[in-house]
């Protein structure tokens, strides 16, 4: 079996102020899949991301990359960060250059690429996030959603194999969330492993292939979304309820309103299934009527 692209094995982490970040956390990211990390505030979601990118080092346990342990040497961490991009939650805290292009070029320049390659990468990254032609704009004139996209472009320009995003949907309105989910899907389709944290259980189950549940610094479950969806016990421990789509579908399937399989991943998908079903049945009744 192929090794997971990144893996935390039995990782403990205690913050300098004594707060426990992680306790025996084990979690593996399958290559090219869309992962969602779920947990209540303070469960350790950001701490996990910072370990995966090497910003924090495990107090005990190991970080493995393609099955190989990553040691704490400068070279190993640099190699890790080259492959693993991390987008933080608050754009105000990670955009520090005055202009969009300048900020996006920060990472590629640090990779030691030449100016032409950097320029090409900046353009490609801005295109990918839908900010073509924004390179010369001043960062502080952008809207919140645009800033968020600049942050993502800044990481994409480093062409990471793994993209980690901390609460990427926070603060975005509905259309922007749809756009961002589509962008992440495109990246995953290109083979990039994507991991995002969220506390929206409905979104997580609607979007992700794999779900990882975090509670009080432990990873209590890691599995494909469809296998975890009905595990009310595990979800409760992680501070969540069963996704509404699953609960609704169970009710409707019990009544025979919808087929038991396939289970829709999200409430909008369930709604579509209902509408399609209604359309089909009215189409059938139309046909029946017309043939009568």
């Amino acid at each position, binding site marked *: 079996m192929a090794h997971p692209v990144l893996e935390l094995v039995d990782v403990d982490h205690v913050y300098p102020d004594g707060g426990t970040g992680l306790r025996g956390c084990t979690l593996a990211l399958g290559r090219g899949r869309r992962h969602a990390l779920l947990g209540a505030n303070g469960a350790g979601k950001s701490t996990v991301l910072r370990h995966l990118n090497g*910003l924090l080092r495990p107090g005990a346990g190991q970080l493995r990359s393609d099955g190989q342990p990553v040691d704490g040497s400068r070279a190993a961490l640099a190699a890790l960060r080259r492959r693993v991009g991390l987008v933080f939650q608050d754009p105000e*805290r990670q955009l520090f250059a005055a202009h969009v292009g300048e900020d996006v070029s920060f990472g590629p320049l640090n990779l030691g690429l030449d100016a032409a390659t950097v320029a090409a990468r900046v353009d490609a990254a801005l295109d990918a996030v839908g900010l073509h032609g924004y390179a010369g704009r001043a960062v502080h004139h952008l809207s919140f959603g645009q800033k968020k996209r600049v942050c993502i472009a800044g990481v994409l320009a480093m062409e990471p194999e793994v993209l980690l995003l901390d609460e990427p949907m926070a603060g975005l309105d509905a259309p922007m969330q749809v756009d961002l989910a589509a962008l992440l899907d495109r990246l995953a389709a290109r083979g990039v492993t994507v991991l995002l944290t969220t506390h929206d259980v409905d979104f997580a189950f609607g979007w992700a292939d794999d779900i990882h549940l975090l509670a009080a610094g432990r990873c209590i479950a890691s599995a494909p979304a469809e296998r975890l969806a009905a595990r009310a016990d595990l979800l409760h421990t992680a501070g969540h309820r069963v996704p509404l789509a699953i609960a609704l579908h169970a009710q409707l399937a019990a009544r025979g309103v919808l087929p038991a399989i396939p289970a829709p991943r999200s409430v909008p998908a369930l709604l579509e299934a209902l509408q399609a079903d209604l359309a089909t049945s009215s189409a059938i009744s139309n046909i029946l009527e017309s043939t009568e």
Partner: protein
Amino acid sequence: MLIETTAYANRWRGVAPSAKALFALAGIAAAWIAQRPGTLALLALLLALAALVGARVPLRAWLAAALAPLGFLLLACATMPIGPDAHGDWHWHAAMVPVAAQAGCRALAVLAALLGFTLTTPLPDLLSLLRRLRTPETLLDLMALCYRMLFVLRRAWDDGVDAQRARLGYRGWRHGFRSSGLLAGHVAQQVWLRAAALQTAADARSYAGTLRFLPAAFPRARRQNTLALLAGALLVALALGDRW
């Protein structure tokens, strides 16, 4: 910020800041009165024990806080007996040794007095004490805002450094220097934005030009002040014994 964390978690957290300040001032006065290095060292020990035993300040925290000044002390005291003569040649002057010993021990005692105060008293408690002592309002407002905002800006700085490290911003000192400069410029610009945001938020709460807060109450302050004065008087008496 180790001193600040310790100040919030020790046995004297609820003691009136006025009492702790009186004791520290008495310690400083005693250190200024005392002459012999031995007496000064004893004062330093007593003051340190007050914090370690009385307030249960962890020894590690005390030592960590004292580390930087002790480095200065070592350098400065070692410097004093060495120096150039009239011809510019560097020599060892034995005559400076007693001066260095006295200055060193005195500095230790005063440092112990200060640490006894700062490791047991959160800075805002000191600010409300200063307010009662009629410190100029402009200065107090400056201090109150500075205290709150330094944690906010520090958080912003740390997050910025993390974001830069995640994008390989600190490989080698050239990159590091550039990254620090960019970030410092960004945080400097935040100074204006955050000041404006605070102004708006204050206006929304009927701000009328002065920052007023209700100070914390220390109901047993009188008794604690008396005790602190008594303990301080013992230190001063010890120091006075040196002069006779």
